[in-house]
């Protein structure tokens, strides 16, 4: 399978990026980390906007950088699309001229995306003849995405594309990003400080801390570890699972999903039977019991094994729960109090019942 492999060592002031990673050359890779972890620097190094002096980068079978052989492909020769935090549209060009900037500069034979396609995906058809100054933040970012797509990139890089937007604009842009993931086969590297954003979009998760890659792998299995191994307890932690739509219970407006934990009922979704969806379960919506509770409003109960828990819990503990039959599967997370943990005498390896109150489908 085609991969992207990179290794960068770059010092700027007091900060040193020393990152090495291998990720699939397809799907969405979320680059997550606290501010100052080097997320943007890493993305800039991948694009070639910052030249790390000790570095290698291969994208599929192309070498973009290998400093040991003094190979450095200049940015303008790399087939990439870059979306910055601020849309950074050219102020002297109309929306149409902006999106055609890259398009005009690649040979017709290499154009993988037509102008009509890019306009349709980003919904900017009505603003083509306007100047960037008159656009809202969300509109500008959509133009920036269309502009990057029209350069027919083999790799899309997005640096916090939603961070500079207000909540309504963010909500407006999110479906477009999801649409890109669904309809395009271009690998996308998405930098974000929001795990929620990454969980909605990404397949692969890369975690940066202090300039180092601390985690890198499939999102579903890594996400719980990010929560349980970081010193702090995230009150809004959640797990992401893959599921298949099994059937609908129309009278009750419910949908049954097939998951690795067993059948799970969720609020009715529009997806048809057999369709694969991604679901999110908040840790605060999962409680732990030692036996099946028959008289309960909670319908989703699963026998699970305690895989791990937060290392240094203050008042609350986040517990990772895996199916008894499939301990390697992506776990559920449960947020319980430290007192419950002690009173129930829970310990790692114990078999318990997870009760799931809320399931939300993200795509």
């Amino acid at each position, binding site marked *: 399978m085609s991969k992207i492999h990179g290794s960068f060592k770059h010092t700027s002031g007091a900060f040193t990026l020393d990152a090495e990673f291998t990720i699939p050359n397809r799907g969405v890779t979320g680059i997550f980390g606290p501010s100052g972890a080097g997320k943007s620097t890493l993305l800039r190094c991948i694009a070639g906007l910052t030249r790390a002096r000790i570095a290698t980068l291969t994208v599929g079978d192309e070498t973009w950088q290998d400093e040991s052989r003094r190979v450095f492909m200049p*940015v303008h020769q790399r087939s990439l699309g870059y979306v910055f935090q601020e849309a950074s549209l050219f102020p002297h060009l109309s929306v149409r001229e902006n999106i055609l*900037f*890259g398009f005009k500069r690649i040979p017709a034979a290499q154009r993988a995306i037509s102008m009509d396609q890019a306009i349709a995906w980003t919904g900017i058809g009505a603003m083509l003849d306007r100047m960037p100054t008159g656009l809202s933040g969300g509109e500008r970012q959509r133009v920036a995405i269309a502009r990057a797509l029209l350069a027919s990139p083999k790799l899309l890089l997005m640096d916090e594309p939603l961070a500079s937007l207000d909540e309504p604009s963010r909500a407006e842009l999110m479906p477009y990003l999801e649409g890109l993931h669904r309809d395009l086969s271009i690998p996308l590297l998405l930098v974000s400080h929001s795990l929620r954003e990454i969980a909605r979009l990404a397949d692969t998760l890369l975690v940066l801390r202090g300039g180092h890659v601390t985690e890198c792998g499939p999102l579903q299995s890594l996400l719980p570890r990010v929560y349980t191994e970081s010193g702090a307890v995230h009150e809004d932690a959640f797990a992401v699972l893959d599921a298949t739509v099994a059937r609908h219970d129309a009278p009750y407006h419910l949908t049954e999903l097939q998951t690795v934990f067993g059948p799970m009922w969720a609020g009715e979704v529009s997806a048809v039977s057999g369709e694969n969806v991604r679901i999110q379960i908040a840790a605060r919506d999962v409680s732990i019991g030692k036996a099946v509770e028959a008289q309960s409003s909670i319908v989703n109960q699963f026998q699970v094994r305690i895989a791990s828990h937060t290392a240094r819990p203050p008042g609350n503990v986040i517990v990772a729960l895996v199916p008894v039959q499939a301990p390697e599967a992506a776990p559920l997370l449960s947020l319980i109090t430290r007192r419950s943990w002690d009173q129930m005498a829970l310990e790692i390896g114990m078999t318990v019942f997870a009760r799931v109150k809320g399931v939300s489908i993200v795509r």
Partner: protein
Amino acid sequence: MDSFDWSPIFLTLKLATVSVVALVILGTPLAWWLARTTNRARVVVEAFVAMPLVLPPSVLGFYLLFLLGPNGPIGGLWESWGGPRLVFSFTGLVIGSVLYSLPFVVQPIQNAFMAIGDRPLEVAATLRANAWDRFWSVAMPMARRGFLTAATLGFAHTVGEFGVVLMIGGNIPDSTRVVSIAIYDSVEALDYPNAHILSAGMFAFSFVVFLIVYSMNRRADTVAR
């Protein structure tokens, strides 16, 4: 008015036009380098470019006379290659004007280039534009206001020069006798009516130039907002 001599006016406009064209051609790469370089020599070059702002024109004129004169290091070499005399000629005036007005052209262009920042150029690079392409398709159009200001100020400042012209140009009709010299001459000859006409013309010209520059800046600000 039959006897009014238009030649100083035409000569002044010709000198200012030729000087501005030369200044923009020479000043643009210099301003680009000053705006983009991280080289520590930058401040030294900046200081040299700014010096005509404070240096008495007679100092500049004196050094030019020395350097460009037939026995000077540059003038001597030039004439030994068969070049025409530089001092007391139109060419010499253009050289003097270019140096004298250099800060008025380089500084607005440099400021305009710096105001663009790195981002638009980085975006252009990710959209397959090479360095040359980025300069022409992003930097130049985004800095166009700076060019307008630079050309206007350079033109006006050249029209207003006196000391340098006096030192290296003298007072040769149709060759170096520009308006400012003609005014000085008229006063010396007690021809006050002629001095009045030329002075009032210069006065009105300077006012109109700045009126245009400031109203353009104001309009551009309003549009940007």
